[in-house]
């Protein structure tokens, strides 16, 4: 690809690399954030959903008369009412072997998972709306629920008659001489893994406010979405609202983690309700709804085998990844992306494995749809690859570092069997660095000494390579569809201050600070003079979504391209005013300076003022527009890499696992802000510890979700946050702004494998090897007791 918007100007790192405090923190940490529930529109109504109590059933009757008659209830809609406007949301993954589904806004005729919206009650308050929901009477005629993905794919009843054989996705590839690799293997290491069903569990649940003005046909929709421009597109595509009169607004958002990167029925229903009722309508999801319906994540059953030669080098891999997809594809990511990525992308990882047999499949089941959650596809894939590496280390009696060094890729660029090209990386250095940080020999000595006292500690290692900066090139490299680009606007005011608008929303990652650092280095202005607006409204810019570890790379590229236009004008003006060659001008510390001529400078403020108010200072043919909007989409896929080593202790009286310490190595190229990168590592790793030790959405045999409150769905709290030692490697990308790479997902991608490996190491004297997460205390206790 050689589009101009793939070229990013060079930049001198000055503010980039500094531990700049996050500008949002004083506001957010003192309770001054304005989240969706804080927004109150005059005359607003409140929506609440009647949700299916059955996993799979025919709706024989929906009785809404009593609810409609309740004082304060304004409207009750069922599936028929919604279907007049929209048949449903169509979802699929653009890969071979994917079959689409249509998710109705409100279920009609059949419900397919517990929690599926069946009716919506709109009332003067949320309390009355819930009272109204209690009065809606739905009769269900039970159908057999489909609950196990692998047996669902073998036949039997359908979870969703659009997919009669329950196959939502099925495909794969054989690359290289897999049979030869396994036939000639000195050893084959294999296992079946189960990666549990998770909720992304953002601190702020979902929510929507819709407001419609019939006089102008103007629709405003507030939603804490990671993809507001996509939502806006859907308002037109699915509902027919005129695109030019739609605005999607994104207030402060308390975490998304991928869950808020979908289009949901609730987001499509509220605009219709607001228009038909001629009043603003608000819905704030409660925690029970969030756990029950706001997409589940990561659950897969995975068979994987590695062939090793007699030197313990991996020579081939076979994988079959089966997703437990839920009842529908949740657009745009679908139930396909999880097993597809696990099978097609992750089995080779950082290793030079020439042959691969890759099978992906997703089964429709009568459960909540699976969606994206941080590290989608990568987490389970890294879990099985890295856990099997540790299994192999034990089989070959090698250290976990040595076994990885036997197969790790050492030469770049490197093309894996799937055809993906990795331009650079510090894959070997990561392993070496982790070994040094852990002090492996000392650890083994301590482990042996503690075992003699009846205490059991273990060390687990997990290394990864992560696709980052999700882009058109990334999609193409993986045979995935998807065209991406994002814009940024940079505007300098007469007094030299700068307003930056990016097309990416922020959910607490500190984008406003990191983007200000990029602009500061481009324009030479102090951070205090820069305000960054992060897609607060679709009125500004275009964004493809805050997903796929793309914020820093993509927004950074767009911001740098836009600010470079301003920079070029400031340089031209300064050269004219200072009678110097533009090539000799640099912008630094608030001034344009002539390189090599000390004392020859003009302040940025004076330059900006001159642009607006002093034509005499302008060079010939000067265009005074101090505002630029440009797009960015990197020319090539970007990959970051790293690894974690963890030390855990298992308690012999309870089987409880405690993470004693985490060692992290991260290589995301040029680090814009080490504090923010380290925060991303800590947060992601702790989510990974939760996934490995605590979190599990549980369905019973009738398809009822058992874990509907945080009393039962255990998320990691502060006492599950271990001490960290973090080491940065910096292998810059050669084709992103300043060499930046993305890293938002890396913690969760690789941490669960490190936990599982550490527990298995702690249990290595027992002969038990665990292959499922979350690891339950009961499994550990059983292992310890033989």
């Amino acid at each position, binding site marked *: 690809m050689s589009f101009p918007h793939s070229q990013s100007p060079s930049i001198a790192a000055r503010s980039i690399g500094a531990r700049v405090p996050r500008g949002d923190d004083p506001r957010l940490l003192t309770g001054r954030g304005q989240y969706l529930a804080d927004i109150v529109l005059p005359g607003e109504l409140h929506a609440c959903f009647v949700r299916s109590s059955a996993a799979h059933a025919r709706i024989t009757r929906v009785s809404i008369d009593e609810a409609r008659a309740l004082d304060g209830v304004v409207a009750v809609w069922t599936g028929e009412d919604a279907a007049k406007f929209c048949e449903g949301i169509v979802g699929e993954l653009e890969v071979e072997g994917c079959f689409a589904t249509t998710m109705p806004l409100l279920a009609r005729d059949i419900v397919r998972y517990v929690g599926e919206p069946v009716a919506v009650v709109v009332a003067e308050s949320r309390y009355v709306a819930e009272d109204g929901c209690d009065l809606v009477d739905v009769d269900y005629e039970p159908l057999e629920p489909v609950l196990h993905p692998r047996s669902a794919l073998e036949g039997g009843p359908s979870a969703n008659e659009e997919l009669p054989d329950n196959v939502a996705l099925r495909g794969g590839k054989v690359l290289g001489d897999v049979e030869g690799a396994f036939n000639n293997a000195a050893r084959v290491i294999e296992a079946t893994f189960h990666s549990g069903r998770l909720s992304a569990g953002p601190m702020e649940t979902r929510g929507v406010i819709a407001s419609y003005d019939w006089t102008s046909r103007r629709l405003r929709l507030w939603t804490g979405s990671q993809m507001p421009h996509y939502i806006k597109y859907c308002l037109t595509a699915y509902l027919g609202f005129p695109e030019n009169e739609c605005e999607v607004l994104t207030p402060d958002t308390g975490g998304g983690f991928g869950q808020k990167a979908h289009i949901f029925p609730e987001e499509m229903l509220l605009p219709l309700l607001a228009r038909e009722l001629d009043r603003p309508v608000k819905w704030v999801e409660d925690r029970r709804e969030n756990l029950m319906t706001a997409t589940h994540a990561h659950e897969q059953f995975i068979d994987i085998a590695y062939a090793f030669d007699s030197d313990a080098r991996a020579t081939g891999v076979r994988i079959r990844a089966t997703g437990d997809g839920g009842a529908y594809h949740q657009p745009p990511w679908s139930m396909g992306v999880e097993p597809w990525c696990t099978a097609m992308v992750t089995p080779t990882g950082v290793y030079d494995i020439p042959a691969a047999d890759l099978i992906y499949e997703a089964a429709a089941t009568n459960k909540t749809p699976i969606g994206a959650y941080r590290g989608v596809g990568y987490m389970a894939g890294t879990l099985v690859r890295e856990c099997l590496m540790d299994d192999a280390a034990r089989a070959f009696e090698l250290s976990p570092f040595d076994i990885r060094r036997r197969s790790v890729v050492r030469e770049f660029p490197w093309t894996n069997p799937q055809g993906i090209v990795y331009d650079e990386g510090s894959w070997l250095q990561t392993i070496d660095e982790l070994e040094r940080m852990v002090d492996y020999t000392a650890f083994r000595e301590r482990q042996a000494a503690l075992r003699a006292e009846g205490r059991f500690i273990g060390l687990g290692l997990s290394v990864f390579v992560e696709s980052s900066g999700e882009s058109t090139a990334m999609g193409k490299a993986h045979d995935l569809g998807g065209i991406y680009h994002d814009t940024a606007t940079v505007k300098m005011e007469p007094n030299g201050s700068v307003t930056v608008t990016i097309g990416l929303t922020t959910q607490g990652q500190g984008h406003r600070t990191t983007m200000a650092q990029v602009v500061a280095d481009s324009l030479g202005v102090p951070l205090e003079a820069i305000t960054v607006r992060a897609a607060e409204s679709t009125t500004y810019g275009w964004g493809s979504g805050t997903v796929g570890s793309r914020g820093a790379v993509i927004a950074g590229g767009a911001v740098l391209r836009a600010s470079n236009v301003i920079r070029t004008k400031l340089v031209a003006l300064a050269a004219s005013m200072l009678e110097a060659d533009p090539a000799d001008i640099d912008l630094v510390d608030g001034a344009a300076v002539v390189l090599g001529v000390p004392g020859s400078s003009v302040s940025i403020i004076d330059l900006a003022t001159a642009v607006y108010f002093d034509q005499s200072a302008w060079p010939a043919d000067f265009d005074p527009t101090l505002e630029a909007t440009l797009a960015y989409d990197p020319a090539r896929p970007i990959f970051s890499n790293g690894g974690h080593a963890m030390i855990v202790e298992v308690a012999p*009286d*309870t089987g409880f696992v405690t993470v004693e310490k985490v060692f992290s190595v991260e290589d995301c190229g040029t680090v814009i802000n080490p504090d923010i990168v380290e925060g991303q590592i800590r947060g992601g790793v702790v989510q990974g510890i939760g996934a490995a030790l605590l979190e599990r959405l549980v369905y019973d045999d009738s398809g009822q979700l058992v874990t509907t409150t945080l009393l039962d769905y255990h998320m990691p709290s502060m006492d599950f946050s271990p001490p960290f030692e973090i080491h940065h490697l910096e292998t810059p990308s050669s084709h992103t702004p300043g060499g930046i790479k993305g890293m938002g997902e890396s913690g969760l991608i690789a941490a669960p494998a490190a936990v599982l490996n550490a527990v298995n190491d702690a249990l290595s004297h027992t002969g038990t090897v665990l292959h499922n997460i979350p690891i339950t205390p*009961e499994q550990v206790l059983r292992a310890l007791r033989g």
Partner: protein
Amino acid sequence: MKSPVFAYAAPNTVAEACSLLANDEDAKLLAGGQSLVPLLALRLAAPTTLVDLRLVPALTGITYDQGVLRLGAMTTHRAIERSPLVQDVAPAIAEAAALIAHPQVRTRGTIGGAVAHADAAAEWPAVLLALGGHVEVTGTTGSRSISASDLFMGPFMTSLEPDEVITSVSLPIDGREIWVDEHQRRHGDYGLSILAMTYQLSDGFLTDVRLAVAGATGSVTRAPEAEAALEGRAPADSSDAITALAAELSYTSDIHGSADYRRDITTTLFQRALRAAGERSGQA
């Protein structure tokens, strides 16, 4: 997650509270609300009237007199945890209070509320049973005292009459050793197993042993066979009691642990208590 409609009353006296209860059979007392309010939000409870006890001055206060620690029903867990008096006369009780949930919950939740709620995974019912305590209650027809063994009838069930209010909780603090401990997966979680044990130590032998288990069983319960198996034995001589405790109780199974697992970790909790008893007997 919004509660259904209810009437709210905040009387100033116990008598008023009793008559509010007597006049509305679906009324419910609010004594801190750390269990009831979530139940309301989930619409798992729908009382017609909430009778809030927070303005009844007679229900607070901690006293110690003649070997009895008396805790007003509206005394918060946090107040018990931090009370210099409790820390002085019965430090194990202050430590037991600190096992309950998180500081935020302890600051609002009350001992009377917890005892009346009778959650199978609550600490106070086990403590009350192990100490042989009792509650003072007042109804429209007068006051009475109910011993712990007569109070807890099953999960979320007590022998309180509908119009009765617990006014205080009394714990005998008479020189017997007290041990309260539990296994929580995360700090502040409901205990997977809670064990409270009281006993006398004389010449290194256990007597007058009372053992109560919660969290691991369907409701808070004594373990009489294990108690009997310890009687007159040294703490180290406990294998019969350990076997008895594993066999005599009906352990519960749920997503957080099977019955077998709960039996195993209740055993390890018991062993911890016995080790502590052994250390105490060594010191004595």
